[in-house]
């Protein structure tokens, strides 16, 4: 009953005209960046982070969340019609989605992708409503040791799942921690690594780092190759899947939803892992696995449901523990902090309007996305024809302005350009930026909780293993660190390794 009252309260907040507008802007931009290859939700969210300052915290965060789950919908359109993933979580949709399109079944592929996403998104929201308050009440008992160990686990999981060498990913995570510590020490107020620059006293901004590593670096990488697009030119019809399509997709949608939701909750996991895991599961369960890769609708329905469910699940660790499980959630944490809010166990009780408002807006956003992605599909197809030699300079201009607006400081533009160049060379040498960014955000929290734990325990390191939750997190982190040394686990890691940065 209490949950229903809270949901009603949430809808009261989400249905305010201004919040509806922000929600629409969010899902629209989300679909837009999802559709356009080369620009992902991370770039769009960091670009719009300063805009959230202009409204209430609810409006800003509703918009940011909309960009995230909106991009999950939009990404599939490009995968199906162009065979280029709009964003990383839609990579796997290319395999069967584009094959379906080539066979003249682009409509059902887009339709099942949108409906599957809607069903999964709805399930994830209901689960979020039920799970988050319970987990938050447990999380109140967490001390600095638990928080420290959870963050370590989150970073280790992400490095485990990052493509390529794990040593490189761990190196990136450590560099991220160091960059996060630039500025005044939160306990002693001593300036660290500021090189005498006043601009660095408050630390390096999240927006220039992310815009550089993901925005500018992505453009630099994309310009290396002449991008050829093979857009399906035939008219897209029959968007509503047939009875047979529904029958074939019901299982994959249900399994993808549940699997995606749980993978989304895990620190370091997220939509990309979920979509790959769902595809692998469906192929394994199928009686005719040979159809996969040749236009099997299950290969679209499962992963697309999974990535949307994961997007919903990822809100749980952020809202209840204050720990972002992936880079996108780290940016959302940035939006909370900009408004002077700290997500965590007390958020739901202290700011019920904010929490339930965001949850309710996500449901409304899912409905908006259904309309945006089915009847308006033609508009997105037209957008796919926009030439890249015009788009890339505009993206660079947007990033420069976005970064400047976030702080009214030219220094941040320099920082962004520097990180853009660094990010480009990092990617060329096989170093993924995702662990760096997550560690950059978690770094100060990690240090704070480590130092607090050591002070409280009077320097007794056993505090991390005597507390069960902390011990469990550290044990799992150790397993994942040692795991890749074992050939069997290394093979599994290579199979699920992902490129979060795309």
């Amino acid at each position, binding site marked *: 009953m209490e949950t229903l009252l809270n949901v009603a309260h949430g809808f009261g907040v989400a249905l305010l005209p201004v919040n509806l507008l922000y929600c629409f802007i969010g899902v629209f931009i989300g679909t837009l960046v999802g559709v356009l290859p080369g620009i992902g939700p991370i770039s769009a969210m960091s670009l719009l982070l300063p805009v959230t300052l202009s409204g209430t915290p609810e409006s800003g965060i509703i918009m940011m969340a909309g960009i995230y789950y909106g991009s999950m919908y939009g990404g599939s359109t490009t995968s199906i019609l162009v065979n280029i993933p709009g964003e990383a979580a839609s990579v796997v949709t290319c395999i069967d989605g584009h094959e379906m399109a080539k066979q003249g079944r682009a409509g059902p592929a887009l339709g099942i992708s949108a409906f599957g996403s809607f069903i999964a998104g709805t399930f994830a929201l209901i689960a979020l409503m039920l799970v988050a308050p319970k987990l938050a009440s447990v999380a109140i008992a967490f001390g600095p040791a638990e928080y420290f160990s959870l963050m370590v686990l989150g970073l280790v999981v992400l490095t485990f799942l990052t493509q390529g060498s794990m040593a490189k990913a*761990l190196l990136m995570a*450590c560099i991220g921690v160091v960059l996060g510590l630039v500025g005044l020490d939160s306990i002693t107020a001593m300036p*660290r690594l500021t090189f005498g620059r006043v601009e660095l006293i408050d630390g390096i901004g999240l927006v220039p780092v992310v815009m550089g590593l993901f925005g500018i670096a992505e453009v630099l990488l994309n*310009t290396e190759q002449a991008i050829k697009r093979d857009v399906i030119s035939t008219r897209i019809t029959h968007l509503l899947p047939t009875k047979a399509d529904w029958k074939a997709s019901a299982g994959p949608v249900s399994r993808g939803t549940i699997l995606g939701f749980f993978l989304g909750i895990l620190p370091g996991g997220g939509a990309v892992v979920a979509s790959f895991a769902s595809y692998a599961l469906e192929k394994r369960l199928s009686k005719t696995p040979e159809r996969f890769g040749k236009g099997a609708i299950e290969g679209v329905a499962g992963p697309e449901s999974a990535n949307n469910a994961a997007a919903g699940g990822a809100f749980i660790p952020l809202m209840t523990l204050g720990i972002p499980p992936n880079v996108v959630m780290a940016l959302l944490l940035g939006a909370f902090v900009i408004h002077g809010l700290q997500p965590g166990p007390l958020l739901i009780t202290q700011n019920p309007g904010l929490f339930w408002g965001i949850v309710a807006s996500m449901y409304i956003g899912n409905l908006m996305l259904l309309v945006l992605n089915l009847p308006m599909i033609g508009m997105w197809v037209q957008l796919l024809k926009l030439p890249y030699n015009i788009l890339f300079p505009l993206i660079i201009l947007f990033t*420069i302005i976005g970064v*400047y607006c976030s702080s009214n400081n030219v220094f941040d533009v320099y920082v962004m350009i520097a990180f853009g160049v660094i990010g480009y060379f990092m990617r060329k*040498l096989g170093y993924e930026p995702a662990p760096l960014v997550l560690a950059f955000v978690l770094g100060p929290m990690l240090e704070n909780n480590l*130092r607090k734990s050591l*002070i409280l325990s009077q320097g007794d390191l056993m505090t991390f293993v005597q507390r069960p939750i902390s011990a469990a997190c550290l044990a799992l982190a150790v397993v994942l660190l040692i795991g890749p040394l074992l050939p069997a686990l290394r093979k599994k890691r290579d199979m699920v390794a992902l490129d979060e940065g795309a």
Partner: protein
Amino acid sequence: MSNDTNVKFRLSNSELWGGLIGLAFGGFVIWSGLKLKLGTINDPGSGYVLFYTGILICVFAATIIVSAVTEGGPTLASRWENTRWSKPLLIIACLTLFSFALDTFGFLLSAIPLMVLLLRVIDPVRWSLTIPLSILAPLGMWWALKHLLGIQLPSGIFEIG
């Protein structure tokens, strides 16, 4: 990977260079941590986490170097093989020029030439589109920010914008 692109002991091994840069950075972080004072385990100082993170960076960088020497890795040149490497290089040059010009000449006077350069560098756009787009895009954004959002972009020594 062919033998030409996968080398072990040569200086052109890109993995080796990545590891060496990491090692140098780790050394710098350790030194910074020591300079900031480590404190004690009961009361960690400002350099405590930096110091230990620096050690971890050195360990991971050393792992990469060892692997580069024993298993080999692609050469630096092979990383840019069959790519239009001059394009990102030109964009980086444009952005560097822009960053020098931004504070001195202001947003409008530096963003318009930047757009012209970018539109002509990445798969050249025809001049009849380059010129209006280069002027209208920065001008439109400057106007929207100044008049709609009340954000002042840098106006430079000529105070334009």
